[in-house]
């Protein structure tokens, strides 16, 4: 295995484009090293992105959003007061990935590129409408985050392409987001179901909403049906019932060692309701 430490994304993309064998990028490493250890992947080339200047930074964009470097670990996201104030749901999703130790290494970009439908940080990014900057041999382009995952373990990035930053839009006024997941223990499990809700209020009414479901389909799902169920409502009981029904309808999960199909469908509805209420309260400013 060749271990590369490029100092620019252009160099990283060039190295990646030139490889012929198995290639992996290394950001936090919390997935790649596990796969290597298990013998699932024996990379010929490993490109460590952490030597590229700026990858460990969180910056406010000119528009008032946040640009997050690809090597910013969960523990740093969680410690960033302003970011947490704007996007608590995104951060809490990331902070649910693994243990305290894993939080010292794991990154949003890595969690996204691992391509797991159960990735805890991804529904929050979907709901937030995050934009991903991708750098390849022919330069950089911005794509909506929901265009990245292609299926379990797969992304839509082309050969030689690498995520170079993730940008969250400006939160603006009267907005709130939340992420909830279901796991059998209190910590350390992969999500059996996850749900993120981001919404904006106009008075007591939901004016805008984005709802994302995790672990109920081959990729994280952005659900328009769920969003529709609560837009224009005050999240009264009927709206919550409609939201749960919509989430159950959107969920197309499999049965596996972590949960049955039926269970995942039920819990998708439960989590959608619960996450929406938290997001609503946050938008109202009645909870953190």
């Amino acid at each position, binding site marked *: *295995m*060749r*271990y590369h430490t490029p100092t620019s994304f252009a160099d990283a993309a060039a190295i990646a484009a030139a490889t012929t064998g198995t290639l992996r990028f290394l950001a936090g490493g*919390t997935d790649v090293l596990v796969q290597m250890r298990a013998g699932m992947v024996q990379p010929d080339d490993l490109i460590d992105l952490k030597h590229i200047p700026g990858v460990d930074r969180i910056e406010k964009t000119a528009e008032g959003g946040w640009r997050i470097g690809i090597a910013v670990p969960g523990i740093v996201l969680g410690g960033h007061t302003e970011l947490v104030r704007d996007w608590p749901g995104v951060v809490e999703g990331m902070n649910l990935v693994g243990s*305290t*130790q*894993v939080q*010292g290494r794991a990154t949003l970009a890595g969690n996204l590129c691992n391509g797991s439908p159960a990735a805890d940080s991804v529904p929050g990014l979907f709901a937030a409408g995050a934009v991903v900057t991708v750098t390849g041999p022919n330069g950089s382009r911005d794509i909506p985050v929901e265009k990245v995952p292609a299926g379990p373990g797969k992304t839509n990035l082309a050969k030689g392409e690498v995520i170079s930053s993730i940008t969250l839009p400006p939160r603006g006024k009267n907005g709130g987001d939340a992420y909830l997941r279901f796991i059998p223990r*209190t910590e*350390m499990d992969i999500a059996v179901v996850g749900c993120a809700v981001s919404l904006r209020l106009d008075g007591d009414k939901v004016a805008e909403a984005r709802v994302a479901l995790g672990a109920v389909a081959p990729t994280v799902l952005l659900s328009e049906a769920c969003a529709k169920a609560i837009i224009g409502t005050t999240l009264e009981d009927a709206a919550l019932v409609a939201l749960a029904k919509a989430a159950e309808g959107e969920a197309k999960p499999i049965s596996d060692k972590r949960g049955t199909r039926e269970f995942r469908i039920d819990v998708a509805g439960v989590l959608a309701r619960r996450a929406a209420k938290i997001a609503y309260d946050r938008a109202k400013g009645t909870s953190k």
Partner: protein
Amino acid sequence: MRKIHVTTTVNGDPVEFLADPRETLLDALRNHLDLTGTKEGCGTGDCGACSVTVDGTLVCSCLMLAAEANGKRVETIEGMAKEELHPLQRKFIEHAALQCGFCTPGILVAAKALLERNPDPTDTEVRYWLAGNLCRCTGYDKIIRAVQDAAAEMRQEHRGAA
């Protein structure tokens, strides 16, 4: 396979070694530096027995390549006691917070990192911070008590010093 020359600091000592690019920091600590106090329980970041700090951040050394440690500051269980035992180490013995002792180095390193960030944690905060450190012997009860007793003593000392 070409090896990588790694220069780093472990428990304050400058060290260098040659690592296979696939070797983890845990492998390097144990097999190149003879620091076997850091344990491997799973190799997948699920048990925390390999906990160390790198530039002050708590990590699983099994989830980091040895090559990534180049130029970093690594702290392991072997560096925890200075002239005297760290209060956590002493309280773990006094409270019988270890049975087999295999998870103990990782838990001590993790608990120390917690108390440096939060000198007065609640039991729940201690439990969630240590959720990535599996212990199969104790049921965690005596571990939580030992961490809290050490924290109380450290707060007392801190006040005494101030």
